[in-house]
């Protein structure tokens, strides 16, 4: 397991939060007067990961060049934590030619082959692909790992079960990371999931399952580090279920009428809590908090600028890139 770099993790979480907050602002800013999902500079669906930063940052702290991640429809935190270029990612979200995918994919289909990062809008379908990437690493004899990220609701999809079985039976270097944010859109976990624990399900598939209860980035760091070390050593797959927090709605525009605890979610925000604990340790000063925030502000503003000034693709480009 690598060294714990508290300041780096705090900085990364702030950076991600700033990104998600600004994208939320930008996304809504031009959909008036009557909110139209297809209107504005960022059209379509938007799923933001504010509150789930500890999951991405704690896991990605252990990843190196060549390690792969498949992420779901709520991918920004993992993308940024894994080194995907913020400018190119933002331009893609804005549907511009300077985007990662030249505007072809958008927010749910971000592909960065340099960083072996991809995401998909179909629930749980990134899990088998991550198994395949792990299989490739195994066949090539590298000690790279694949991280398969999905939600607690997605763990009821067939692909989840097939992937766990396949990974266990072939001893693949893949780590399944379940972000349990309590809500599959509007359906709470106890209404959808028998047995209530994906750590338990892992045991049923012949791999260790660990639950991290409190959205704490250092607890994620330790659990993920152990799991990744295990996979790199050739000891096979494992599953980490992280009880995390979805601060915003499932998608932007979600009024969350179904969510009774909505007015208390901000009390559970992991970033101020972590800042407080780092301050107590004497590892973070008020000046640093301010400067880290300012850096994040500047970087995100620059990315949005970059995106806005990137050209829109020509309509005829829609016919390109079907086949290599």
């Amino acid at each position, binding site marked *: 397991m690598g060294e714990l770099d508290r300041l780096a993790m705090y900085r990364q979480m702030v950076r991600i939060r700033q990104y998600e907050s600004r994208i939320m602002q930008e996304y809504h800013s031009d959909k008036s007067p009557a909110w139209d999902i297809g209107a504005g500079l960022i059209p379509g669906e938007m799923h933001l990961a504010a509150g789930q930063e500890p999951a991405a940052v704690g896991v990605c702290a252990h990843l190196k060049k060549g390690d792969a991640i498949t992420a779901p429809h709520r991918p920004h935190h993992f993308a940024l934590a894994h080194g995907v270029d913020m400018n190119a990612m933002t331009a893609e979200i804005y549907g511009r030619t300077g985007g*990662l995918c030249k505007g072809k994919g958008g927010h749910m289909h971000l592909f960065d*082959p340099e960083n072996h990062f991809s995401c998909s809008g179909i629930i749980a379908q990134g899990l*088998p692909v991550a198994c395949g990437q792990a*299989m490739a690493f195994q*066949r090539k004899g590298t000690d790279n790992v694949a991280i398969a990220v999905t939600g607690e609701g997605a763990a009821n999809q067939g*692909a989840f079960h097939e992937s766990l079985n*396949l990974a266990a039976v072939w001893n693949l270097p893949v780590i399944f990371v379940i972000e349990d944010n309590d809500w599959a859109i509007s359906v709470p976990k106890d209404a959808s999931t028998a047995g209530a624990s994906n750590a338990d399900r892992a045991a049923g598939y012949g791999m260790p399952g660990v639950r991290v209860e409190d959205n704490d980035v250092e607890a994620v760091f330790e659990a993920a580090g152990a799991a990744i070390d295990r996979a790199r050593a050739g000891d096979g797959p494992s599953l980490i279920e992280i009880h995390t927090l979805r601060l915003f709605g499932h998608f932007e525009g979600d009024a969350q009428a179904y969510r009774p605890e909505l007015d208390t979610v901000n009390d559970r925000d992991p970033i101020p809590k972590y800042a407080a604990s780092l301050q107590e340790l004497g590892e973070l000063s008020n000046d640093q908090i301010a400067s880290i925030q300012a850096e994040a502000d500047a970087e995100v503003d620059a990315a949005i600028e970059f995106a806005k000034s990137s050209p829109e693709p020509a309509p005829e480009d829609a016919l390109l890139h079907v086949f*290599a």
Partner: protein
Amino acid sequence: MSTTTEARRITTAKAMAEGIGLEMRRDPNVFVMGEDVGAYGGIFGSTTDLFGEFGAERVIDTPISETGFIGAGIGAAVEGLRPVVELMFVDFYGVCMDQISNHMAKIHYESGGNVKVPMVLMTATGGGYSDAAQHSQCLWGTFAHLPGMKVVVPSNPYDAKGLMISAIQDDNPVMYMFHKGGQGLVWMEKNPRSIGDVPEESYTVPIGKAAIAKEGSDVTIVTLSLSVQHSLDVAEELEGEGISVEVVDLRSLVPLDTETVLESVGKTGRVLVVDEDYKSFGLTGEIAAVIAENDPGLLTKPFSRLAVPDVPIPYARPLEYGILPTRDKIKAAVKDLMS
């Protein structure tokens, strides 16, 4: 195409397996996975003798998890390997269609061309031996309809090998759809055209190029897969009756060689499309549209098609053969065009 050195007569199954084997020898990144592809050699012979040469390391038996192992094929391909994955029966597409059409076929496009998926998904199609509604379909129309994957459909041993080698060498995802009845299996009805001359060496058959299986001047049959074999049988017979039939073997549906089709139709003026897939909203309608939008004046007789009617495929032999595009029906349709 290279000079033919040695040719021997082998079955379609053996030919496609040979194509896979040659590529596996040439490129260590190629490997095979699917259900019973190992020691069994594939339920329909697609991997005959590969396990013996390459072993479990490169010819992998999977659990019954189509979404899982087809997805794994995609992930491996994305990382630079070249998997050949088998979907045992095309009819099983329902349990894994998301991985096929939303992932395998779309990743390259969604990534703006930055990510390649050099994968072959081979699958067994076709009826005629009473395997009923869930095990007898062709469905190439469905796969050809969805953007992002090439679709090849060999009709004979020579093309089976060449198309397989082309498919593996192609950097795109390729659906390789072979007909069970055309494999030359000893435990199915014998089709003499399922055994043929196949060179021992490696060679390619271009994807996206149809072949004139038989030249003729009176009627064009546009067809594919096992129906090519049936159409050739009919054409031979009709030759004796003074009707000259040209058989166009499509070989690929995506890309579709419309040029060859239009040239032949232009020559004969009469077209019959024979398709063992379902009639409506499929290949036969596609050919009609291609002709109509290019030059409907090419036709001197109305467009004619023979396909499986829009019914699930029944079990009892009289019922099944009541709906398949048999030689008798092909012959009758050609004669109709000539009347």
